[in-house]
């Protein structure tokens, strides 16, 4: 996964959009920067397949030794796949926030929300400002 090809929400989720059988499928996770800020993760709650997600609305939460943080959906659509293996292997997120650390795949119902997301350079700049 090339980080330059991903889109990013200002709430630190990343999105990879791909064409699949005439539909657009968005893979969603959280950035390495977010994982580093959260420190060691101890619990994750993800939606089930079929859940409707809405841009800017919570789709789950992660808990670290420091705090519980909501996960915000960067896209509109329906959850078609969930990375169930994360629940028992949260260290995956610490080691590999992108490939192995993906959380949900969403079949987009609307692509308008994508235009609100940041590209890699803009997101890098935001992280630099925050740290």
């Amino acid at each position: 996964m090339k980080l330059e090809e991903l889109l990013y929400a200002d709430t630190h989720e990343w999105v990879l959009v791909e064409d699949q059988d005439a539909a657009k499928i968005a893979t969603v996770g959280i950035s390495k920067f977010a994982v580093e800020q959260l420190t060691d993760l101890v619990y994750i709650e993800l939606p089930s397949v079929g859940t409707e997600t809405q841009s800017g609305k919570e789709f789950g939460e992660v808990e670290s030794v420091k705090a519980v943080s909501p996960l915000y959906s960067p896209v509109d659509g329906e959850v078609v796949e969930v990375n169930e293996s994360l629940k028992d292997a949260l260290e995956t997120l610490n080691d590999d926030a992108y490939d192995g650390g993906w959380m949900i795949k969403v079949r987009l119902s609307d692509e308008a929300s994508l235009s609100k997301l940041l590209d890699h350079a803009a997101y890098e700049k935001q992280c630099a400002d925050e740290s």
Partner: protein
Amino acid sequence: MPDCEVLQDREIRDLLPETAVATKPLALPELSEPDVVRHYTNLSTLNMSVDTHFYPLGSCTMKYNPKRNERLAGLPGMAHVHPYQTESSLQGMLELLYAMQEMLGEISGLPCVSLQPAAGAHGELTALMTAVAYFQHRGEARTKVLTPDSAHGTNPASATMAGLTAVTLKSGADGCVDMDDLRSKLDEDVAVLMITNPNTLGLFDGQVKEIAELVHDVGGLVYLDGANMNAILGVTRPGDFGADMMHFNPHKTFSGPHGGGGPGAGPICVNEDLGPFLPKPVVGLRDNEYYLDDDRPLSIGRVRSFFGNVGVLVRAYCYILSHGPDGLKKVSEHAVLNANYMLSRIRHILPVPHGNRCMHEFVASAETLKKNKGITAMDLAKRLLDYGFHAPTVYFPLVVPESMMMEPTETESKETLDAFCEALFRITEESSETLHSAPTTTLISRPDEVTAARKPVVTWNPGD
């Protein structure tokens, strides 16, 4: 003695299904009384407590618990009354609880009081349920609760428990509510705005009156989280700066003991519009007799058995009467003075991002130390234990990176505050290796918090 009506001549094993009857005796430890007493007494010395160490745990107001409270709460008339006694034989206790309602109403500026909630968070939930009942009565179906991002986690949790949706408000760079963000989120769906003032950064949000007016303009209510009342007793009142309801934490503000999970108390105070919806019963006074007023048709009902955790309320009552109105004001003045003194020393050791003045607590940041030397707030907190100080609150509030939230309270001397500041200074001069392995003087050094949270073992196995 009358015969037992249940068992009579039958054996217990005949009354229970086979699967519920043990086949061999339980492997209970066999120990003599002195062995047990020594075990627990020795364990108790491994703890830090306000009676043994300075305990500047921010947001928790770990003030000294005067021993007078314990003596008075232990008087037979206080300790041995039973809630099933008749009202006429409980007049003394009811009078105390009635006076407590009156005093909390006066201190808060919100005259209607329920003493039932069993803790601060329970008070939040009860007040939100009271607000929901109020809106239902008015035929309004409001759904949103606004909470600033520096709020205690209990605020959004209480909103969710009450069936409402929590919406986060941003803080501005000054640590107070971002008014533009507030305006953009205010609409007729807003039921309640919950605000902690002074907030968890130790700042009094001077916009609070304007915030309350904006919320009231859309028909919403303002809830004050009373966690930080120790800073403003007798100086200002939530009811005067626009709050419609609030809770007190008697274990913070009124020197009740901080128990390991309780018992606590979280009395709530509301304005007269909300009063009829409070839990019932409340203590009333009629023809010189105190009574439990159950005739409250709009009430949300009971939220706690009997009268709440009366033992904690008695201690708070003793504390309030011991100080009186002027004394309570002095409590807050000294709490604020101590915190500012500490801030003025700590800021030369660790940056305090939100200014050189505070209320009863302030938040320092170990971020620079982390960048330069790899020393985190957690390392400092752990090392302080070796120097004989309980650590401040770390990693809260979340709006400050590597935060250390310090609250000395009014009961500490200048010598103690100086000793703490000097210890912290010495620690920041130590090597990162020393700090990463701290604490070294405690029985357990660094428990593996990550594994404990990921793979908790919550049962005791005799072989372990």
